[in-house]
């Protein structure tokens, strides 16, 4: 008896019995063919697919959001790893940007950085934050450039 779905190859004779091993090989071969077909797509098309995959991931509101809003309401520093580096930030505003990414507007004041630390608020993608922790250390939100109606955010979940 043949395996359902495994016998789509044109070389398969109707009614030919398949061993489990052969069926598995055919499934894997079909997968390899599909991957090679995808590899042949134009670069722009592949970029769109990747962007859309990422948009879905970024459109998810993560459970860490409640930690972020907790830190904002308590005026506590927030610690997390981002792009492999440990960051300590003053969180100001959490929401979703116009491109659908759940993000945090925050000023990095400590931890590690690829360049020198700049005392201005940057957007941080929540999906890229790892090991998010609310610090015991409080901060005074006194950034003169802070705009409560952050133009980068299409919707705001919580803010200073």
């Amino acid at each position, binding site marked *: 008896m043949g395996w359902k779905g495994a016998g789509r190859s044109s070389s398969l004779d109707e009614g030919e019995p398949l061993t489990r091993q052969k069926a598995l090989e055919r499934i894997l071969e079909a997968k390899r063919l599909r991957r090679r077909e995808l590899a042949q797509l134009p670069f722009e098309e592949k970029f769109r697919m990747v*962007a859309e995959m990422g948009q879905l991931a970024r459109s998810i509101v993560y459970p860490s959001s409640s930690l972020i809003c907790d830190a904002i309401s308590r005026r506590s520093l927030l610690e997390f790893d981002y792009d492999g580096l440990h960051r300590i930030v003053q969180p100001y505003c959490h929401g979703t940007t116009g*491109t659908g990414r759940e993000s945090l507007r925050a000023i990095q004041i400590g931890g590690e950085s690829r360049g020198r630390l700049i005392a201005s608020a940057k957007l941080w993608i929540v999906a890229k934050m790892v090991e998010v922790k609310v610090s015991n250390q409080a901060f005074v939100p006194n950034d003169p450039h802070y705009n409560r109606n952050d133009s980068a955010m299409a919707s705001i979940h919580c803010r200073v």
Partner: protein
Amino acid sequence: MFRSSFLEARLDKRPGLRFCGSVATPDLEKIVERLNDLQRRGVIGLHAIGGAFAFIFYAEPIETLDLDVFADLPTGAGGLISLDRLYSELRSLGYDAVGDAILIEGFPVQILPETTPLVHEAVAEARTIQVGKQETRVFTPEHSIAVALQTNRPKDRLKIEHLLESGREPLDKELLEVILQKHGLEGRWKKLLAGRG
């Protein structure tokens, strides 16, 4: 516009997560145009797409959060790489910094310096490709492998696996050997191949 009712339905079954609605898909041609414009005006030097998107160019799409662009960046006083002009130019165009990346035309782009001689070589010898009406450059598959072996994180090794399994063109093995030997990466390459069985 992007919206997936299938995925939304799946998310509904996962407590604690929710979907934030549909958004516009970014346009690669516009991003490339903006980068070419920065190069024309001398804000960045010669640049090329590396990282995950270089692998994606030669193989099937994989998930990644940003577009890595390696560039010859101007140095300031004391020989340190200066990103000040780049950031101020991009801000003046309305592009915001997102972590270590800049949101260009709705997609996070990391403009990275040529940190090692290998990356410098990868940029110099990158392949010219067409994106719509724009030309850009992308690391060759051989240089992509070498750079990934140099960084050698688990995700870098996965990208190599991915290319070996779904690459749309055969690798130039002689060229790859030359590059790996020149940059002392043959050991890592042999280890990776041995691990594949």
